[in-house]
């Protein structure tokens, strides 16, 4: 697969993040996340075909199973169980959100960040795009009140970082791969436990009503 296809995939990923910002139904958000993870998996698959590193193949499978299939299933089940169909609550209204998205993307492409994005000069645009994806994921966490959206934001942040790393040519680093595997495991664990605990305690997943952490 050539670079153009990869860049196209990255573009799709970027669009999914914007979609996450704008979507109102949790179900669609989960699907968008699954699409992101699929793209990441394709990145790794491409890397495997180029280097034949078995660890990467392992990562591919793990990402496929956990992130593409299991995580969205888990979220969908969570949505059905707790009737969390809609997540409309945000701090900023939609037009303002879009303006800030634009500003952050523009900042990421700004010249000041060129030492960062020039790690692999051929991929400079992709790296800037991945950097803006990181910023946007952070914005997602900030903007949303629902806990599920925030978790999706963190997960997409992680995907963006992985994309950045892939385009920076660092995916050969075994530490990254082990980190990703480990990260997936821990996140699933914590997400389950944490969300069920919050729900049990507060009765809702709306973060702004969780002002008092003590009884």
């Amino acid at each position, binding site marked *: 697969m050539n670079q153009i296809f990869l860049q196209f995939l990255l573009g799709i990923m970027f669009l999914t993040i914007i979609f996450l910002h704008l979507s109102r139904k949790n179900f669609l958000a989960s699907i968008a996340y699954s699409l992101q993870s699929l793209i990441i998996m394709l990145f790794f698959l491409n890397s495997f075909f180029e280097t034949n590193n078995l660890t990467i193949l392992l990562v591919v499978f793990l990402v496929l199973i956990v992130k593409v299939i299991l995580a969205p299933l888990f979220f969908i089940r969570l949505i059905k169980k707790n009737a969390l169909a809609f997540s409309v609550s945000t701090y900023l209204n939609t037009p303002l959100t879009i303006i800030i998205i634009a500003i952050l993307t523009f900042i990421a492409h700004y010249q000041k960040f060129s030492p960062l994005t020039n790690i692999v000069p051929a991929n400079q645009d992709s790296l800037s795009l991945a950097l803006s994806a990181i910023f946007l994921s952070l914005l997602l966490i900030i903007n949303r009140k629902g806990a599920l959206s925030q978790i999706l934001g963190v997960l997409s942040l992680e995907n963006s970082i992985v994309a950045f790393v892939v385009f920076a040519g660092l995916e050969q680093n075994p530490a990254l791969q082990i980190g990703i595997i480990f990260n997936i495991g821990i996140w699933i664990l914590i997400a389950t436990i944490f969300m069920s605990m919050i729900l049990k305690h507060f009765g809702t997943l709306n*973060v702004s009503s969780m002002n008092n*952490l003590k009884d």
Partner: protein
Amino acid sequence: MPISFFILLSLFFVGAIGSLLLRKDDSAANIWSSFFAIAGSLWGLLFSVAIIISEHTLVFVIDNAPLSLLSLSFNIDLLSAFFIFVISLIALFTSVYAIGYVRHYYQKYNIGDLGFFYNFFILGILLVLTASNGIFFLIGWEIMSVASFFGVIYDRNNQENIKAGFLYLVMTYIGTAFITVAFLLLYKFIGSFDFATIKSGVGLLPIGVKNIIFFAALIGFGFKAGIIPLHTWLPAAHPAAPSHISALMSGVMIKTGIFMMIRLFLDILQPIPIWWGVVVLIIGMTSSLLGVLYALTEHDIKRLLAYHSIENIGIILLGLGSALIFSSLGMPALVLLSLVAALFHTLNHAIFKSLLFLGAGSVINQMHTRNMEEYGGLIKYMPQTAFFFLIGSMAISALPPFNGFFSEWLTYQALFQGIAMLGSSIRWLFILAVSVLAFTGGLALACFVKAFGSIFLARPRSMEVAHAKESPRSMLIGMGALAMLSFLFGIFSSQTVSLLEKIGRSFDMLKKIPETILAPNNQSMMIKNGFASVSSLTFLLSLVVALIFVTVIINLIINRRQKIKIGATWNCGTDLTPRMEITSTGFARSIILIFKGILKPSIQHTIDYSDSESRYLPKTRTVSLGVGDVYKSYLYQPITTMITGLSLRVKNIQSGNTNIYVLYILIALLVSLFSIL
């Protein structure tokens, strides 16, 4: 040779870990930790004496350190060896004492923990004394501070001890912050944390930065040493800890601050401007005088001893300050004299202060209170403890022939030389220092008359005294050995001083000068230009001869038919009650009133009348005597109020909303990326 050092460290390490593993069994933990502490101390004594006699400096590095800036490098030169000697000596006898003392805590608290922290404390001190890399030094410093913190709060049922421990922890960390700043500044300008590299590169420091480093180091190590006004943790923390740990804290731990000051100011950062020595001298003056004045106001025996530690640190700083001044003026012979005085006083103070703390611990064990007003007449119930405490009191009041006199004598000589040799404005500083030292000596004597008299003499002031018993043998051995050392170091002061001169001459600037303090017939000390000389042995012998002579003549020759009757004290015909005796508060009240400008005593009357209308017949009267806490109200309270106010305003950043926190993360990310790239 490094093997022997690692044996030393591992003895204490094994003692600590084993004690922790044996925590289920109190007496086994006690025996294990005491055995290894004693073994380690003996090994440390041999090790340090071997280094001092062979004049061989050990420098070695343990490779494969995890981080690039941290190198586990050790530098054991003669100064470190001397301090290792001091701590081994004191640790040996406090460990012997602890065997009997710790039994007091069986069933109440966990002895295994105590042994663990005790051994780690000593280990931390050993690391501090030998580390040659800034970060490694800080690691040892942390171990020492945290282990002693746990020692301080060991008796945790008493709320005061927890508060004292907290105060101690906070102030230690403020001090450590200042030390870290000093090391960081050195790193920034010289490029290394390693002490040897810093020493050779000290010329790279601009003078302004050097002064900042001086202040940072002075304040940082001053917090640990307990100079005024950074001393407020000392009278709170030393009483709270168990007595053998108090003895180590007071005898050795505060000296590590002095050790680093000597190392930094006399060795690494040379040459130094003269006002550094002036500042240290002034700090020494204020600490000694104020320390002894506050000691006079105390009726809690351990707080009294803690203030005396502050006073003696002041005296050591007088020696160190004069050494610094002489080094700036290029008088190496006098530097050697002052340095030897400071080192000798360090050793002596460690010995007699530990002795006093151990004695206080024995008394407190029996009386279950630290309040001296409830003691009295203990000399009849605890005669050996009283005798050892008497020797400690005589030593700390600088009475010959005990060791305190000879180190103060040397300090006086250093100051006298300053007055004789220096120009006019600095002379007055030295004259002031001599007067402060003279007053301090006199006031210390008054304070220990009060302490010894209140505790041991006269009639019992409370019912508890009748239940007091003499301490168990291990405690007596610990105290007795220290008393004997106090005596021996006084008698053999000239030999000790020649060894100390050897240590002093290991410093770079003092390498080529001849001896300053001579020992002509090996039993007297003489300053080289003939200014002064004193002999401890002759004095002792003449005193003993006179005593024997007088005793024989008076008791055996004159009037052998004399009868001695035992009767009651003259009481002007009234009942003889303990209330007739003077209290320790009353004893010192005259001095407090004379110094009322400094101490700010207060007196409050509360009267409860039988009939509130007519106010003629009081039911109860309460008089409260107090001494104003100047440091709290003028120094710490304003700082605390400012910090609290600032914190309240900053608290608004913490809104409790996670989204805001992630916003902070995003902003921080953007800002840092902008500034780095």
